[in-house]
C-alpha cells in the first residue's frame, strides 16, 4: 500500500527543476506523513532563483546564504523551520579552499536562529550539477502533526 506523500515546492524562492531550460526530473523535496509524524526529504538545494537561474556566481558567501534561504522557503511552505531539521548533507565544490568560510556562514546562520541541538551533518566535496555552483545542501526534517480532529502528535 502506498504511504501518504507529496512533492514540496516554494516557487516564490525557487522554480521547479522540471521547468529548467534543461529540465531535470525531481521534486524540490518529498513530504511523507506517517501516522502523526511528518518527514521532509529536501533535495540537494543550491543558489538558484525563482526562474531557475544560478545566482551569486563566484560568491561563496552569497551562494551559501541563498541556499540556506531556499531551504528556509521550502520548510516554510510546509509550516516548519530549521528547528525541525535533523540532518544535512553539505556538498562543497572545493572543500579545502571553502570549508572555513562555509563554517563561518553556517554558524552565523544557525546562531541567528538559536538552533539547538544542531542538526547532524556530513560535509563532503563533490562536483555539482552546474559548473558555477560552489555549494549544495540536502536536508532531512521531522516533526509531529496534528489533524483537525486532534489526533496524532502530542
Amino acid at each position: 500500500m502506498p504511504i501518504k506523500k507529496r512533492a514540496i515546492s516554494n516557487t516564490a524562492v525557487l522554480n521547479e527543476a522540471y521547468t529548467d531550460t534543461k529540465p531535470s526530473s525531481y521534486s524540490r523535496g518529498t513530504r511523507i506523513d506517517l501516522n502523526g509524524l511528518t518527514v521532509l526529504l529536501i533535495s540537494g538545494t543550491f543558489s538558484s532563483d525563482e526562474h531557475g537561474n544560478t545566482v551569486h556566481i563566484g560568491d561563496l558567501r552569497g551562494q551559501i546564504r541563498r541556499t540556506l534561504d531556499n531551504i528556509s522557503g521550502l520548510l516554510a511552505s510546509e509550516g516548519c523551520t530549521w528547528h525541525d531539521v535533523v540532518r544535512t548533507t553539505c556538498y562543497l565544490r572545493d572543500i579545502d579552499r571553502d570549508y572555513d568560510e562555509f563554517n563561518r556562514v553556517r554558524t552565523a546562520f544557525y546562531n541567528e536562529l538559536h538552533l539547538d541541538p544542531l542538526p547532524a551533518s556530513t560535509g563532503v566535496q563533490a562536483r555539482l550539477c552546474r559548473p558555477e555552483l560552489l555549494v549544495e545542501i540536502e536536508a532531512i526534517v521531522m516533526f509531529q502533526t496534528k489533524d483537525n480532529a486532534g489526533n496524532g502528535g502530542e
Partner: protein
Amino acid sequence: MREIIDQAAINVNLPIIKRAVANHTLLNEAYAYAKPSSFSRGMRLDLNGIVVLLISGTASIDEQGVSVHTGDFRSQLRRTFKNISGLLESERASWHDVVRTTCYLRDIHRDYAVFNEERTAFYRDLGLKPLPASTDIETILCRPELLVEIEVIAMLRAEGQ
C-alpha cells in the same frame, strides 16, 4: 527505587525488524564478487506498519556481478534503473514508492544532459507523480568503468495495514 527500575525496563533497546533485499535474476550479491564487498543490495525495515527500503548504490551490473555497457552512459543508466526496479519488485514495491534518490555521475558536466533525458523518459513512462526528491552529484565510483550509480529510499505501508 521502583521508579528507577521501571525506567530501566522502559529503556531497554530492542532491534527493529530488518532483512536484506536481493534479486538474483538481475544482479548478484556484492559479497559474491571476484573481489567481495560486504554490503547488501538493500535493507528492508519494518516499522510498525511502515516499510522502509534502503536500496544501496546500484549500478550497471548483471547477475554475474559483471559491469555491463562499458563506455555507454545511456545503457548503463537503463540497466541501473532496471536493477533498482527488480530490487523494488522483490519487496512488492515500485518506483511509485520511491521518496528520494541520490544519483552519482562520474562526469556530471559531460553526462548530465543525457542523464536528465533518460530519467525524465523513464519516469514519464511510469507516470511517476510526485517525482522523488533527489540530489545529483559527481563522484568517483567503485569501478573505473562505471559512469552512474543510484541509491534510493522507498517507503510504503505493509500489506494489511
